[in-house]
């Protein structure tokens, strides 16, 4: 019985490490309105706040998108490093974080203060700039 439980513990723990989603395709129905897409990030001139964004990302987003933001195939979550994500404007990403995509299981994060949502976007941009290493919690 002890062996069985230990095996189950190892199995369950390993599940959280599984998967990424390079084949992610954007939901064509999930498009930010033009007015929202045009909103500038008020923290653009405060790049140091991206560190707080990384912490928020690990707390709120890593569960589905992984700690490096590469997504998880089993959860159909976006690989945030892909151009299809990174080419979107800050305003569009802000709108998507705020509203979520209920039909695809992405919850709304409107409960986070607005500036914290913008911090998340600053951090998402670092994923594009330096790849997975930027999000490595060990660094």
């Amino acid at each position: 019985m002890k062996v069985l439980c230990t095996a189950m513990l190892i199995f369950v723990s390993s599940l959280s490490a599984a998967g990424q989603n390079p084949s992610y395709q954007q939901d064509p129905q999930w498009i930010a309105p033009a007015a929202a897409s045009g909103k500038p990030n008020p923290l653009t001139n405060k790049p140091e706040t991206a560190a707080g964004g990384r912490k928020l990302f690990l707390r709120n987003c890593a569960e589905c998108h992984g700690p490096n933001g590469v997504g998880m195939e089993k959860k159909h979550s976006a690989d945030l490093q892909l151009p299809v994500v990174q080419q979107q404007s800050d305003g569009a990403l802000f709108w998507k974080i705020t509203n979520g995509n209920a039909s695809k299981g992405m919850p709304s994060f409107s409960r986070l203060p607005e500036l914290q949502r913008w911090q998340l976007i600053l951090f998402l941009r670092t994923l594009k700039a330096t790849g997975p290493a930027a999000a490595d919690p060990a660094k």
Partner: protein
Amino acid sequence: MRANGFQFVLLAFSLAIPCAAQESPFVVTYTHHMEEPGNLEFETSSTVGIPRSGQRFYAAPYMELEYGVTTQWTSELYLESSSVWGDSTVFTGWRFENRYKPLRREHWINPVLYLEYESVNEASRIQKEIEGGGPDLICSNRELRGEHAHELETKLILSSDFHDWNISENFIATKNLSESEGVEFGYAFGVSRPLARLASGSNCRFCSENFIAGIEMYGGLGSTLDGFTPRGTAHYIAPVVSWAVSDNATLRLSTGFGLTDQSNPVLLRVGYSYELAGFGSRISRLFGAKR
């Protein structure tokens, strides 16, 4: 047997991975923010009533299991009890609630529909909501526990996020299916705001970004049988605060001040919640579901 129980607890906690545990500070008022899909939240709370003359001191501990079924649907199970000073401690029943958010996106006002079935006795004092005249604060548990009630409770939850403020209003209607008490009405209203707008880069626990403060007001509005009698029912105004103790856990505190003779002068509430992320999918995989 004890070893197996311990291993089960270990297994359950191994399912937990860090997730956002910062919760609304409200104890009574519901917002439109739903539990994240697949997450399970345990909460243990207690309502403590400081008595007026003629009333009895009591504590009403209860436990909640909240599960995010989908992004728009959250279910919750309550188990509750009541302990009255100089009287007794009794199990007062259970409740099963469902909340459904019909709109998929954020709007100025976000409605949520709430339906709850309650199998409780009249000794229930947790006061997760107050409807009609509020609970009986004078009679003993022995007298009240024999009066069992099957109730259906509905709420219309309206909630708005305006910049960093949350403003929520709940309108409550409850029908006791066991007795003819008419339909009882109640309300709850709350406003809250995080203490900090920006997150720091460090993993601090006492910094202001981990706190949300607010105020809520709730009470009964009478019933179709007794009429609209807000002056003859319990009403409270309560400053509230929540503290994200860790990535998974939140502590909630509320001190309610009674506004009428039917209220306790002070109603203290404390709750501790712990969130297990991805609980549903991991459990389903344990039983053979495909990835």
